[in-house]
């Protein structure tokens, strides 16, 4: 067994059960409900619709209300009801709504959550009304195109990416130069060795490899028809081997073997490791949690290829006011409204014309401003590093197998073979 705590493991199993059952039920009810949705649908932009967002209130209640008020003023006779859902359990909530035909008209869905709903014909194809690529950045539109389905199943909303955050104090003490932090994974291994030489108790590396590292390394994840995982190659095994050797030499703390995403940032804030990744909003969090870190964090661009995180709004295929729902989804994702959102918090608009908004590209000298400018620049080359076919349950499974390999319990090749075999089973059930 990997080093998961029993409780965590049970939670994971439970989580997997819910997802599986929900997917099953979703299939059944969606299949049954398909024929009966022929209620009178209006093409006028009017009537009451609901908007469901994901954990944006109370912080952005004011902003969302402003967007809604603007829409209602532009289209008299419409009203938009905001239902913001809490962060935890959002996937379960959406699946429950989908399986009981209560999906709100406009739903904030990241691509991986939109995929199962699009497969069940529960989301509207939004590519039919006009050319999306005139308004939105191509990479963000592609995130809502799915293999085997025609069309685009969501309007791209805000974007984010990861930056590297380095502990400048530890760099100085341990013989590294915070002005020249690692820019690639290979440099990371090299500098980790330097740090270990000077500070035997310190760590530079703070996470084990995952699917994003395979994509960064140019390893093919899926077969061309999208039906098989194929990343169990010698190249991938060599990469895992490299991490295994680094772990054996003590370049990473043992707790990375049961880390989840928040893991490396916690270790970083504690000062146990000198590196973490995080969005452009991360800096504010680190400094608020541990004020002693202020002025001690160096930022640079993500290693190798930066990741692209896309959020979007989808329109329910069963909406009673499809025209209103589409109009609102276009409204909330238009350049003007997205720019305003990006000025409130370090996220980035998915609209083409936002590139001319000087706010995002200008380094105003503050650490937050530097992070923003770096991240905005990074978005030009950012790619989606987690293929949407790899859902969270598959990531957990891969994580466990890689933990075994890094610990040295099984060979990297066997761990990858096992992961691919199980993930293929899960993929065929989707």
């Amino acid at each position, binding site marked *: 067994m990997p080093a998961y705590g029993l409780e965590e493991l049970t939670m994971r199993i439970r989580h997997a059960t819910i997802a599986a059952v929900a997917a099953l039920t979703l299939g059944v009810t969606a299949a049954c409900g398909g024929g009966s949705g022929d209620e009178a649908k209006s093409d006028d932009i009017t009537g009451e619709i609901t908007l469901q967002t994901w954990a944006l209130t109370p912080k952005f209640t004011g902003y969302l209300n402003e967007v809604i008020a603007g829409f209602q003023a532009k289209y008299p006779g419409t009203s938009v009801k905001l239902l913001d859902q809490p962060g935890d359990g959002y996937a*379960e909530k959406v699946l429950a709504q989908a399986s009981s035909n209560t999906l709100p008209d406009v739903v904030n869905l990241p691509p991986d959550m939109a995929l199962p709903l699009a497969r069940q014909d529960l989301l509207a194809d939004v590519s039919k009304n006009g050319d999306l690529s005139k308004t939105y950045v191509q990479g963000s539109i592609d995130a809502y195109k799915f293999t085997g389905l025609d069309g685009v199943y969501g309007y791209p909303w805000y974007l984010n990416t990861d930056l590297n955050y380095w502990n400048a104090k530890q760099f100085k003490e341990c013989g590294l130069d915070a002005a020249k932090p690692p820019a690639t994974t290979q440099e990371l291994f090299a500098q980790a060795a330097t740090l270990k030489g000077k500070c035997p108790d310190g760590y530079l590396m703070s996470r084990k490899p995952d699917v994003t590292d395979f994509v960064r390394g140019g390893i093919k994840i899926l077969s061309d028809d999208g039906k098989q995982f194929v990343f169990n190659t010698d190249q991938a095994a060599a990469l895992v081997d490299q991490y295994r050797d680094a772990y054996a030499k003590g370049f990473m703390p043992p707790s990375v073997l049961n880390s989840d995403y928040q893991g490396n940032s916690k270790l970083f804030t*504690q000062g146990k490791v000198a590196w973490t990744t995080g969005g452009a909003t991360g800096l504010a969090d680190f400094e608020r949690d541990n004020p002693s870190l202020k002025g001690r964090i160096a930022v640079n661009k993500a290693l190798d290829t930066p990741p692209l995180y896309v959020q979007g709004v989808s329109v329910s295929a069963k909406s009673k006011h499809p025209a209103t729902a589409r109009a609102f989804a276009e409204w909330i994702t238009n350049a003007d409204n997205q720019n305003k959102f990006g000025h409130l918090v370090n996220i980035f608009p998915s609209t083409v014309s936002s590139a001319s908004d000087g706010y995002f590209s200008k380094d105003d000298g503050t650490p937050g401003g530097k992070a923003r400018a770096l991240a905005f620049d990074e978005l030009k080359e950012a790619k989606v590093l987690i293929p949407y076919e790899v859902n969270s349950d598959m990531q957990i499974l891969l994580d466990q197998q890689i933990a075994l390999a890094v610990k040295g319990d099984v060979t990297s090749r066997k761990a990858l073979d096992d992961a691919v075999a199980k993930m293929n089973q899960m993929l065929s059930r989707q």
Partner: protein
Amino acid sequence: MTTTDVRPQVHADKSDGPLKRRPEVSGREKLLRYVLLLFVLVITVGPFLWQLSTSLKGAGEDIYTATPSFIPKQPTLDNYAKVAEAIPVWRYIGNSLLVAALTVGGNILFATAAGYAIARLRFRGRRVVLGLFLGTLVLPGEVTIIAQYVTVRSFGLADTLAGVALPGMVAALNVLLMYNAFRALPQEVDEAAIVDGATVPQRLWRVSLPAVRGTLAVVAIFAFIQAWDDFLWPLIVLTSPEKLTLTVGLQYLSGTFTQDQRLIAAGTMIAFIPIAILFSALQRYFFKGVEEGGVKG
């Protein structure tokens, strides 16, 4: 304190002879016992203490330190005030209390009635009913959650607090607890009441219920904790932000872009304190009840 001398009287006839005297404990063993007890205490209470201390820490001091520090250097109650500003915490507490009250009331009523019927009344299919109750214990709740939601929705109870409370109002485990408690009472007392002409409700109300108050307290606590702590079910049933229960509503403190750990810790404490108070108020009955129902099973 020994635990063997507080056996309930019902079982007095079963105890075999006088209690054995415990041998004297050597000093070293005593020390070892205390060390082990302290160790377990640290494991169980540690995380709560950490949350408590985080919730009291000021904005100027570090939360994550290599060696955990429990005493805030700039103690403040600001974080609690900020929680109340950020989310309608009183409303959420009210919603949670309503759901908890319905769940506790429902369980006391229905678990008592069902437990008494299975333990004391003769009717066809009694064993089958008991088996069904046992059988549902094996199913994890998550498996039926979507089906349950579709059912509650078809009653028109989606997005209502009644819909949240309904499925929890009679829990199979509580029925079994009550069944066990009633079964432990001597049959003769019941038979005497029958001879005196007491009806079933009279026998339940006057003869049996007073003897199982301890188990009732256990059922009440279990039901309360279950209703107060439940997360996934209210999350799925409720959609309107103003109707959420406390555990779900507190999730708004960890937003998409910002997570203030001090606020989250303060929120956790707000959710935890009522349970701690309830438990310490009822713990006398709790332990009495656990023994009363469980020994003879």
